[in-house]
């Protein structure tokens, strides 16, 4: 049996999903969109699968998340909907419930956060609520696993008995007449498709285009629907959408006045207001946000992350050495030896050393998200990102991009709109990641020793500026059309649950490991192959003879207009694709292997202006293989990943060209 878990955002849906399934989860995408589809087996019920639907507030046809949910419910016809609602915010939560009930699919309402309701001194009369709504209501506390067993038991019973919601009538007067008239009119069409006529009718009254198309009404029938709607609008002196929203909220207000006994004010709410008087304070909000980000960066890329990385690298080195000596002792073919040690171990090892950083970063991110602080960041920072067509929500992934593009791209998952998510992913690589620092350090020390900080800052700012320009271009090309409205709930602050935080960290670590051993593995082997063999597939003794160097030489002229056509520079750029740090090590290897020879060679290869042009190109050109694979995963498209590579190389070339030629006029 299939169970669909649906509900608003911030009502504990993920927590309940984790409680229902334990660790037994699969993550995928809904067809055609990059909206997460998590599935899992319900604990203790092998034949029961629960699908976690996106967090939504309504079944309107506007956002991808809403459309995905509708399509799933209409096409897949789950055996039961588990509708999770936040009992402390019951009025708004039931708005979605009423729409779900109209679908005529067996349903249970899970009334979450009952502990808070009790603490506030309030009561919700469960029996009356069930009676009035006509569906079973199970009170629970998902974070403490209270009531989850009862929920499973009742949901299975409801699904097995095909017990549909008893009530679908939330209307009176003119709306009632319109819904019933239209439901009757289109009954045949709806039933043929297996859709509840009630649901179809209310959607038609709301002017829902996907529903009109789905039902394939004749012109005559459409006219009659519109006639009914116009009559309703005239009688109510309001329009179709407002009329139905009003109908639902009026019904809910009636239900709440009978079932909810409010004695005290919500403690969590009062606490949130107090916290917000500091965190979203007019003067303090931005400094505090910067502080939190700095602290997170320091801990991730400095203290904790660095320590973990060191330990982890030692482990990898240990294993590498062990395998190395074992292979030597065995006397294996030197090429195979090189493949295993220099190719696989070195390549995957260097990528795996990202892992502690990613896990640490997601530890902090999931805490910021689960506590409710991320929504505040969006509130505080919205104005800055609006000009490029994004909302404040995209701010955090962008900032993480300065550390590492990989977790930044992965973090875009928390953005609630698919459009914003895609656009953020495309812009993140312009935020100069920390792996490029060694390159900047090498070049600034060699060429701009007196202006090191200035050149570094100039590079970072250039990345941001190019990002803004691209954002403006995207807004008017790829992502034309209306952005998703910025109408966002600021949920009460809550203590994050260790289980959710742990699960998220594990998910991200697993996700990254899988990629490290598949696509990144492949990329490192290709680079190794190109570095090890020459054009006749002989093992090279001088790296200048390798296939990679040959490719470097072949493409070097492409960089002529940018001021550097040295094959060693172009070869280093190619290896930068596996990891940005490799640019420095390749340059070192190709110029003789010592710091002094590298410095001399750099001065032979570049003038300061050419060096700056090279840095500009390095700043903007294709992200590393790990980041590209993250793009592919999050955008769910190979084309997108290829597109990012091509697009960024083009942008980098253009920017370096402009820098070199305008610089040439000035200096």
């Amino acid at each position: 049996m299939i169970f669909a878990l649906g509900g608003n955002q911030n009502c504990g849906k993920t927590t309940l999903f984790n409680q229902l399934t334990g660790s037994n989860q699969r993550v995928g995408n809904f067809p055609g969109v990059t909206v997460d589809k998590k599935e899992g087996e319900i604990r203790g019920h092998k034949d029961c699968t629960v699908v976690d639907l996106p967090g939504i507030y309504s079944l309107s046809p506007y956002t991808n998340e809403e459309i995905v949910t509708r399509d799933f419910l209409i096409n897949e016809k789950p055996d039961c909907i588990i509708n999770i609602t936040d009992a402390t915010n019951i009025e708004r939560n039931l708005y979605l419930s009423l729409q779900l009930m109209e679908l005529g699919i067996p349903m249970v309402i899970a009334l979450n956060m009952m502990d808070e309701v009790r603490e506030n001194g309030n009561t919700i009369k469960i029996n009356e609520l069930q009676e009035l709504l006509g569906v079973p209501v199970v009170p629970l506390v998902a974070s403490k696993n209270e009531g989850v067993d009862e929920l499973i038991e009742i949901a299975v019973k409801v699904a097995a008995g095909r017990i549909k919601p008893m009530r679908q009538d939330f209307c009176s007067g003119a709306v009632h007449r319109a819904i019933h008239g239209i439901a009757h009119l289109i009954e045949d069409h709806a039933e043929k498709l297996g859709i509840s006529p009630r649901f179809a009718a209310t959607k038609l009254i709301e002017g829902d285009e996907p529903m009109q198309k789905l039902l394939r009404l004749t012109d005559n029938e459409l006219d009659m629907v519109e006639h009914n709607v116009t009559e309703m609008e005239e009688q109510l002196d309001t329009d179709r959408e407002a009329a139905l929203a009003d109908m639902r909220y009026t019904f809910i207000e009636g239900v709440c006045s009978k079932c909810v006994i409010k004695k005290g004010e919500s403690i969590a709410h009062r606490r949130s207001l107090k916290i917000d008087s500091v965190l979203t304070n007019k003067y303090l909000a931005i400094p505090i946000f910067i502080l939190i980000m700095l602290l997170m960066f320091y801990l991730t890329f400095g203290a904790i992350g660095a320590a973990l990385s060191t330990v982890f690298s030692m482990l990898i080195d240990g294993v590498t050495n062990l395998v190395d000596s074992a292979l030597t002792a065995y006397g294996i073919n030197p090429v195979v030896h090189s493949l295993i040690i220099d190719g696989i171990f070195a390549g995957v090892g260097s990528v795996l050393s990202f892992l502690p950083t990613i896990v640490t970063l997601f530890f902090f991110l999931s805490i910021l998200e689960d506590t409710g602080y991320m929504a505040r960041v969006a509130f505080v920072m919205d104005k800055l990102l609006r000009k490029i067509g994004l909302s404040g929500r995209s701010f955090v992934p962008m900032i993480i991009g300065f550390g590492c593009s990989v977790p930044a791209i992965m973090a875009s998952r928390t953005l609630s709109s698919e459009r914003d998510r895609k656009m953020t992913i495309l812009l993140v690589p312009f935020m100069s990641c920390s792996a490029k620092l060694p390159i900047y350090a090498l070049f600034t020390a060699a060429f701009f020793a007196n202006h090191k900080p200035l050149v570094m800052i100039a590079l970072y700012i250039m990345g941001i500026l190019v990002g803004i320009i691209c954002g403006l271009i995207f807004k008017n090309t790829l992502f034309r059309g209306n952005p998703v409205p910025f109408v966002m709930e600021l949920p009460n602050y809550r203590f994050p649950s260790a289980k959710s935080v742990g699960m998220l960290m594990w998910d991200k670590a697993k996700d990254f490991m899988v990629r490290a051993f598949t696509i990144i593995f492949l990329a490192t082997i290709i680079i190794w192959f190109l570095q090890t063999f020459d054009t006749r597939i002989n093992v090279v003794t001088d790296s200048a003879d390798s296939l990679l160097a040959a490719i470097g030489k072949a493409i070097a002229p492409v960089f002529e207009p940018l001021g550097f056509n040295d094959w060693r520079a172009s070869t280093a750029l190619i290896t930068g694709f596996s990891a940005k740090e490799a640019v420095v090590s390749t340059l070192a290897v190709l110029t003789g292997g010592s710091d002094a020879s590298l410095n001399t060679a750099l001065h032979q290869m570049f003038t300061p202006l050419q060096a700056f042009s090279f840095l500009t190109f390095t700043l903007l050109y294709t992200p590393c293989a790990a980041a590209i694979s993250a793009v592919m995963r999050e955008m769910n498209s190979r084309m997108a990943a290829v597109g990012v590579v091509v697009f960024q190389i083009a942008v980098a070339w253009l920017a370096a060209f402009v820098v070199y030629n305008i610089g040439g006029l000035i200096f």
Partner: protein
Amino acid sequence: MTLNEQKLGVKCRIKAVNGKGALRRRLLDMGLTPKTEVMIRKVAPMGDPIELHLRGYELTIRLEDAKNIEIAED
């Protein structure tokens, strides 16, 4: 009068939500229906967006979108 002109911390009631499409529907869905009591709780540090209090919870919308919401003071 529209919501963007309202003073901070003063309760008022919604008369109508104008505009069209996704934004309007979203506002209605989030509970900004006629006769609902609403109050502006806060303005973001950079002057926009604003934080509203309605139906027992907090919602943030942009000033530009608040222009679509007609209100009457209680």
